[in-house]
């Protein structure tokens, strides 16, 4: 049994679809409130996979994911670090990505460097207001980066322009790095996993998704968990049967993770 821990808080609202994604991929999801995880950190030790879902945690009134991230940094770092060090695949989608970046989990230390023990790493990136200064919902053409070490996106490189898309819906998705040169370093380390083909939110390097140096911690603004069925594709009524064969790219991302989690458990 592969157990997927999905952590929710007040304002989380993409938890049901994230649970369904793990379930369809063969894992058994366990949806738990952040307060409960803080009270019982062993829940993180027991998890084979960890998901931070999308939404507007705690209202996102200061900035997206800010309070959720603060609580994880202040109260949950040892347990989260433990999971990451043991190789547990972690995903943060949209608000979850905003949380992981502010926790400092992404992009994380360079290959070969240790995760700090006492406190989480200082964040080196941020997800800021879209250049349009407003929330936008669209299905983006995305490039699954061939050179990436990300385990979640394995085998998705080279998807065609029609099916190689992901739905995306956010107001604060513009990825900004704190220092020049960070992007180039991440690219050469294979940590850029996903790029927008049409960089509508103004992210540096058109980056839509990042992973850590091991490729097991993955965060992205688009929502693969909203693309588990072909009838969710924005123009599925004109795709031919051949294009709609097999699993959707969204589902394949989660299947990759479940396989990676099983290889750890073994």
């Amino acid at each position, binding site marked *: 049994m592969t157990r997927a821990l999905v952590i929710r808080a007040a304002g989380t609202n993409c938890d049901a679809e994230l649970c369904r994604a793990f379930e369809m991929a063969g894992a058994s999801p366990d949806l738990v409130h952040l307060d409960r995880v803080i009270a019982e950190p062993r829940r993180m030790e027991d998890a084979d996979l960890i998901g931070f879902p999308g939404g507007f945690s705690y*209202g996102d009134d200061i900035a997206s994911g800010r309070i959720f991230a603060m609580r994880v940094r202040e109260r949950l770092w040892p347990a989260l670090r433990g999971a990451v060090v043991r190789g547990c695949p972690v995903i943060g989608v949209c608000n979850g990505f905003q949380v992981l970046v502010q926790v400092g989990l992404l992009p994380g230390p360079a290959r070969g460097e240790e995760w700090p023990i006492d406190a989480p790493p200082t964040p080196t990136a941020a997800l800021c207001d879209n250049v349009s*200064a407003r929330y936008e919902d669209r299905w983006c053409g995305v490039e699954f980066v061939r050179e990436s070490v990300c385990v979640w996106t394995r085998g998705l490189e080279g998807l065609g322009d029609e099916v190689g898309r992901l739905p995306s819906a956010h107001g604060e998705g513009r990825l900004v790095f704190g220092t020049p040169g960070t992007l180039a370093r991440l690219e050469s380390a294979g940590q850029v996993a996903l790029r927008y083909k049409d960089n509508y939110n103004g992210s540096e390097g058109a980056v839509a998704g990042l992973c850590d140096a091991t490729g097991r911690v993955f965060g992205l603004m688009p929502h693969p968990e909203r693309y588990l069925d072909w009838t969710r594709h924005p123009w599925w009524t004109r795709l031919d049967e051949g294009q709609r064969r097999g699993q959707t790219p969204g589902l394949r991302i989660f299947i990759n993770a479940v396989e990676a989690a099983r290889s750890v458990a073994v």
Partner: protein
Amino acid sequence: MVRIEVRAREGVTDPRADAVVRQGASLGQPIARASTARVYLIEAALTDAQVRLIAERLLAAPVVESWTRGASPTRSGEAVVEVHPLPGVMDPAAQSVREAIRDLLSLDAPPAVSTGWRYDVSGLTDEGVRLLAERQLANRAVQAIHLAPWTPASLPRGTAYRLRLTRFPLRELDDGALERLSREAHLFLSLPEMRAIRDHYRSIGREPTDIELETLAQTWSEHCVHKTLKSRVRYSEAAKRDSETRGERGSESGGGAEIRWEGRPGHVVRDDGTVEIDNLLKRTVAAATHELIGDGVDWTLSVFKDNSGVVAFDERWGVCVKVETHNRPSAIEPYGGAATGIGGCIRDVIGTGLGAKPIASTDVFVVAGPATPADEVPPGCLHPRRVLTEVVAGVRDYGNRMGIPTISGAVHFDDRHVGNPLVFCGCLGLIPRDRVRGQARAGDLIVALGGRTGRDGIHGATFSSAELTDTHADEFSHAVQIGNAIEEKRVLDAILRARDEEPTPLYTAMTDCGAGGFSSAVGEMGSALGAQVDLERAPLKYAGLSYTEIWISEAQERMVLAVPRDRLPALERICAEEGVELAVLGTFGTPGRELVLRYEGTEVGRLSMDLLHDGLPMPTKEAVWGDGVRPGQSGAAGQGSSETARPGEGTRGSASGPCLAVSRSGCFPATPPHSLTDPLKALLSHPTIASKHWIVRQYDHEVQGGSVVKPLVGPGRAGGRGPSDASVIEPVPGTGRGVAVGCGLQTGVGDPGAGGDPYLMALAAIDECVRNLVCVAADPSRIAILDNFCWPSCERPENMGALVRACAGCYDGAKAYRTPFVSGKDSLNNQFKVTDPKTGRVERLIEIPPTLLITGLGIVPDVRRCVTSDAKAPGNVLLLVGETTGDLGGSMIQRLAGLGPSRVPRTDLKQGPSAARGVADAIRAGLVRSAHDCSEGGVLVAVAEMLIGGSTPERPIGAAIDLARAHADPIVAAFAESPSRYVLEVSSDAADHVTAGLARAGVPIVRVGVLDGSGRLRAVGLDAPVEDLARAWLGPLDW
């Protein structure tokens, strides 16, 4: 007071500042430089280390932001605008920050916090700064503007309240005094109602307390009981109007329909032809539903009784649906008005039966033309462009935060809405079939859940029943509120857990606190039992509320539950885990079925449920219709001269669009050939028809992962640009079964300025709604509909006559299409009085045209059969289903091209339903590649939209069209808006089969064209690249 400012670090883009520059430009105020900062005011004794911790770990992201303690200096040449919420106005950010600081510093109690925005701008005059602040950055109904950094010595807090019981000496009042009291105390009760109350208190030998009077006013308000629609009506028709509407184009008789009044339920026809109806709503809208249920419609689960209507989805689940308007608050504070509108509608769905999970939202707006010159906006009104921008933002911020996809909607533009914008908010929910009914029991506790009670929203119910005047913005600003979606999301999470407890939910009944607050919620739930309430137990936002204020406050995000005593601990545990505040206010059940209200042990009110719920006098309303009688176009409105905004003149589109050019050119030449290119582009650019992608893409329409047919369809960079007829979701993923949502809005057909008839408008709206649903593969025998009337004052018999006719249309339409009404709501008195500030004389009365929104919910048996409107492939054939008639009255082309008078179109109640069934059969058989309904703008606009949706520069699709077989008059053929018509794209192999199928059902169907790879739309008088048409369609509302 600790003040912390957070701003973008030097060199990091600040999109909010860029937006301020754009806003300045839109006001003609060029801003040289702008920057923004978030301001946090924290009232607490904090050490420097604590302040640093709060700033760096909570308020600022050091990677991209810097922070300052205190006010950072103003640069020379720059002006500062600071915007802070007025005292008592909801500040969701402050609530988050309070709790987060408590958590971060491990404090016992959270500090007081307030938040604001600081804008530094250069290049503006003082007047420019003022304009920017008032028109764009703040709304003074809820926010204060400071022209320098603002750091108060302390944050406002309430002062303790001491009980002072207030009685109104009512028994001796004469009519004049009663009317004055009703107005001055904001009760908005009529004289007969005030008399009934006075007589009641005479009979029981005492004077009423203020809380009793307020409770009666709330419970008897138009908003809460729909007394106009439920009243007794006497309706008469004047001589037929005939000649005036006989136009050159196809009109053989008068503008209105002949309605046969005999034989309708509860309608008595007198010898003089007068029709008397004892309860309009019951005898029309509700009667249709009950007759349909009696005639085999066995899939409704709850109609008209609860907060929303419920129909069967499958064996296990029901779907509920509710649509409300929030017009008055949105006129004064569009952002908060729309947000609390959707928030309230969502709560209605949550509070249906024993609890439903909201699964989708809808929104429909009607506003004045966006290009209205600023100096033509009457005093007391906001500019329509600002109204629209902010209502969209309000729906966006509330719906997105709640995690409910906003999937369907419409926007219409008409200048008569300059003072009365319409904001319709809808919500759908999923409910287990064994949780559809709840009933409170005597002895159950009255439990309030969710937000705290404050002074916000006091008198919303009575305010929404009054007409607007230019002084309302000041007088009623307390009726306006800002919502807090996260509070409501927490309440939802807690309720769904409590609902799903085994073996039964932790409560026996539930309702939301909407209009009237606790007074309505407790009054409704306890109507059969009585209730006793201890008002001091309600958690308050701040001290100082009187017992009456607590009772009638409409503060948001509150629910009332009836909880058996032994289930309370379990409910308390869930609420604690979800961070939801819970308070036990009292008990249901009193010996005499009374409502007993106490404050700190003192009885402050005692009312019999009989008086509350059955004591309202129902006077007879006069209604007329006929020659020279024009609803929605009043003459002198009681006093002074008056002038109404003229319909017909159309709504201003984009100032530079082709729309005005066509208007000026007047009618088409008398003889063909007519160039159709310019009129087509003008229609596509009219804001009512133009693409709403600017709105759609601000809503999360994908959350919950169930979107099958999205509001925008077809291929494209952002995922589709074609308009969808209706949206489809798969609410229980993996079942393959879907719910479709769509609407019909045919104000033009009922438009008094175009010789319209509200009876025909209702038929056309039901027909349009059904077509929209059928086009995406909904089963036409499984469509439930809702009525939302927005009307001018029904004190005018002409407007009441229009309402009677619209209701007759609802009855006939619902029965013909076998679409039961399951819920509805009305908003009356939508008119705006512009008064001279000096004399108080009414200068102008602007009435809205009678407006009926029909919302439809359809079941889609198999989502894999769904069809979208985007053109699919060259070689396919286009078929036009339904008959095209020469009735151009109320059409877009009549308004845009200044065509002469013409009859408004009739809906054929045999052919319309047959066409819907025939098209649905063809779609179910998999024979249809795309389907689109013909509505505003007619066939040519429909085909253009299909091409815009399906064609891309890389893979162009075009069409060659020949409409001669649809109608001999090329203008009629191209632009008539005859109802019951569809454009279908089918493969050339399937064309004969589909044609034969519909012809067998007696439905006209003609081949009107074929798709090709040209990327051009061609017909006689028309040859235009699809990309040009796309630009005309996409541009006007690309804000």
